[in-house]
């Protein structure tokens, strides 16, 4: 049962823990996503700024490079202009130009048509590199009419230098060339030729891609018409093919509208082959107009720090969750421990409550306890200070004797309650066959001393009140002497203190006795009464007790106990009760009986006298006109007790007598048997066990058993050297 409950609890706990963890994880993820979003935005903004700057710087670099080309050509222009009158010298001029500029692939001088009539309509001397050598020749104008090239007249008419659209080297298709066209003037200032210098665009590409923002980033240079002038070394392009990139840029409709605003246009793309995402920035700075410069960045690299941060975040989140799980686990454990401790306390409380009930059930519960009797008024009460206490009281009547006791075990709570229970059961078991209070006390004491490792002790008072005679024998073991109320007089019972029980096993307890006069009230109490403390730690005390009791001479036992309890409660007030409060009040109220029949016979202690006895009993029952069966029962009982006395009261062969008195009224028939033999208490004989087998049954012990069964009561007293035995039957 308990285990199932625990498992159930653990399952609930696990569910709660998981819920907390999942919530925490979701929160962290959300946080991380928000963080990522803003970080991404920030990175993106940075990228745009950096790229813009990069594009400007690169445009400048290109411009410087071009300016350098122009500057180089400027020197040769003078040379050409001076050589104009000698067309054939122009060949060597071109050769020199190529020789002096290692970056030039070649150059040619395209004369306007019909400038040298002797050379035909068109004249174009050229020098081109072929490996390490330079070929100088006249361009085959028949095959290729340079005036048909779009920019030719444009440059001539406008007198402006002009960069051609890129084109593939007719001799080497892997090389892209651009041509720089520079106007040449005659002395009159008229444009008479264009000096064209072919440059390998790869040269510009190298300048453009000397460094990138990111390892895979690269730059492209596009002509005004969107043709690729130069780009990175193809071996260094990791992802999308440059051609595709150019095509994509040219496809972009945005290009048309935004390419001249001075601000970059940004296009997102996804690589066709590997799905890599990236962004293209392109711009057409005035510096190099109409050329466009392009930067390609890959997100993987752009956002690498973010991805790294995110990875770090995930790791940190996981560690955080683990720590959280650990904390939850630990706190769950401590919660379980707390809960277990609570459950344990609850269980202890329940058990204490059960123990209290058990303890209370040991005590007399019903009042009046002897509703059929009119010679006793008894009331007792025990209020434990804790759940269970070490006080006890009890009383019972056996063979017309009232056995009563009150006690207080040293200490409190469970240990005291255990000793109390043991003491109580010892009291009951010993007094079931022993009527002598000192011997009862000795019996209990011996048992308590045995193995009393914890040195608990018990103060105890035992009284045995013989109800027919009022003779009270008592024995005190260190307990407060009971108080005796006789009329207005309240005084402690003179009781020798003796030693508390549980201390010395061989202690010789002294018995005392008094005759209790009719209407006397005996009040027994524990020190919970006199030592009850109020908030000022002052004790209720004996004096106050006596004062209260003085006003109680007419009170019943119940009233007395309740009055005393109320007074103590009022005195203690809000103070914590320090000790159990136990009270037992006994008023002895014997009634004088009147008899309508009174007869007696004295017999010798000889069993042959039983015949006379039986005749005597028969005459009594006949006079009372009892039924035959009842008469026989009474006759048997009387015979048994008398024979018992004859057999046991006198030592063998000692002559003695037994006096048998019979007295009766309408209610009862009583026999009193008196003898002067040695003290012999037949009521103290332990009861014969009627369940034993034939082999185990002793021959004796049957007589007293029969008497107890046949009569209503039996009572023994030893008074003035005589055994007095009373047996009584309601008739």
């Amino acid at each position, binding site marked *: 049962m308990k285990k199932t409950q625990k498992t159930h609890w653990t399952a609930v706990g696990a569910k709660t823990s998981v819920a907390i963890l999942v919530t925490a994880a979701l929160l962290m993820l959300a946080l991380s996503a928000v963080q990522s979003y803003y970080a991404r935005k920030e990175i993106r903004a940075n990228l745009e700024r950096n790229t813009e700057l990069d594009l400007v710087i690169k445009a400048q670099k290109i411009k410087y490079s071009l300016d350098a080309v122009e500057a180089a050509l400027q020197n040769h222009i003078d040379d050409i202009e001076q050589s104009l009158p000698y067309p054939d010298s122009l060949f060597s001029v071109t050769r020199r130009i190529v020789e002096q500029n290692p970056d030039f692939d070649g150059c040619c001088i395209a004369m306007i048509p019909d400038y040298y009539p002797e050379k035909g309509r068109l004249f174009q001397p050229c020098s081109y590199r072929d490996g390490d050598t330079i070929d100088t020749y006249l361009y085959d104008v028949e095959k290729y009419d340079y005036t048909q090239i779009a920019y030719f007249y444009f440059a001539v008419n406008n007198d402006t230098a002009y960069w051609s659209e890129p084109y593939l080297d007719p001799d080497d298709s892997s090389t892209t060339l651009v041509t720089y066209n520079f106007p040449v003037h005659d002395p009159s200032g008229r444009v008479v030729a264009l000096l064209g210098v072919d440059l390998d665009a790869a040269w510009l590409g190298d300048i453009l891609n000397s460094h990138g923002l990111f390892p895979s980033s690269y730059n492209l240079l596009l002509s005004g018409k969107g043709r690729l002038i130069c780009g990175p070394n193809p071996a260094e392009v990791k992802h999308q093919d440059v051609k595709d990139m150019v095509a994509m840029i040219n496809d972009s409709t945005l290009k048309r509208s935004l390419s001249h605003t001075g601000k970059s246009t940004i296009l997102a793309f996804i690589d066709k082959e590997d799905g890599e995402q990236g962004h293209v920035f392109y711009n057409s700075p005035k510096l190099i107009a109409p050329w466009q410069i392009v930067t390609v960045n890959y997100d993987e690299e752009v956002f690498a720090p973010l991805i790294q941060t995110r990875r770090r975040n995930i790791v940190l989140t996981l560690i955080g969750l683990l720590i959280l799980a650990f904390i939850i686990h630990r706190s769950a454990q401590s919660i379980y421990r707390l809960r277990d401790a609570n459950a344990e306390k609850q269980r202890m409380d329940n058990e204490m409550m059960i123990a209290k009930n058990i303890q209370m059930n040991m005590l007399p519960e019903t009042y009046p306890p002897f509703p059929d009797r009119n010679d006793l008024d008894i009331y007792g009460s025990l209020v434990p200070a804790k759940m269970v206490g070490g006080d006890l009281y009890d009383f019972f009547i056996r063979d017309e004797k009232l056995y009563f006791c009150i006690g207080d075990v040293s200490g409190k709570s469970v240990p005291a309650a255990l000793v109390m229970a043991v003491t109580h059961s010892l009291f009951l078991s010993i007094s079931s066959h022993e009527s002598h209070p000192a011997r009862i006390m000795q019996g209990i004491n011996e048992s308590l001393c045995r193995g009393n490792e914890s040195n608990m002790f018990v103060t105890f008072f035992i009284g045995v009140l013989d109800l027919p005679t009022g003779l009270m024998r008592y024995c005190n073991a260190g307990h407060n002497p009971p108080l005796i109320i006789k009329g207005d007089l309240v005084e402690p019972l003179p009781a020798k203190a003796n030693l508390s029980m549980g201390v010395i096993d061989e202690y010789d307890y002294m018995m005392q006795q008094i005759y209790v006069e009719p209407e006397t009230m005996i009040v027994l109490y524990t020190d919970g009464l006199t030592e009850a403390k109020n908030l000022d730690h002052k004790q209720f005390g004996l004096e106050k007790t006596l004062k209260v009791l003085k006003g109680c001479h007419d009170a019943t036992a119940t009233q007395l106990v309740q009055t005393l309890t109320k007074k103590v409660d009022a005195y203690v007030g809000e103070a914590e009760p320090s000790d159990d409060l136990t009270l037992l009040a006994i008023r002895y109220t014997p009634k004088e009986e009147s008899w309508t029949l009174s007869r007696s016979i004295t017999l010798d202690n000889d069993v042959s006298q*039983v015949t006379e006895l039986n005749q005597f009993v028969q005459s009594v029952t006949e006079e009372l006109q009892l039924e035959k069966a009842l008469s026989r029962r009474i006759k*048997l009982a009387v*015979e048994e007790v008398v024979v018992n006395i004859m057999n046991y009261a006198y030592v063998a062969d000692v002559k003695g007598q037994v006096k048998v008195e019979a007295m009766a009224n309408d209610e009862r028939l009583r026999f009193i048997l008196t003898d002067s033999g040695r003290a012999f208490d037949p009521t103290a004989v332990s009861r014969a066990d009627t369940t034993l087998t034939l082999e185990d*049954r002793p*021959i004796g012990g049957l007589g007293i058993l*029969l008497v107890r069964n046949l009569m209503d009561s039996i009572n023994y007293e030893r008074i003035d050297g005589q055994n007095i035995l009373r047996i009584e039957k309601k008739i």
Partner: protein
Amino acid sequence: MNTTIIEKDGKYIVTLEGELDTAHALEFEEAMKPLHDVTEKEIIIECTELEYIASSGLRILLGLLKSAKARGNKVVLKNLNDEIKDVFKMTGFIDLFVIE
């Protein structure tokens, strides 16, 4: 108080009459003594006329029962009156004896 013992068909039939009080116990014990010597017999104690029995009488019956058991005899009590039966009940003898 009268005690008669007759042997019939290999059984002993004891007839008790009157009141078996303590005064007559000794006499009864004497009368029963021969039965302590028999072996493997059925002893029937006829109690129709027995009016009263004290514990001294019960003790003699218990003694007889113990010796009978040791010698393989069987003791049967017959026709106990109600009061005597009560006495047997009070003492637990009702469980020891065969009572018919």
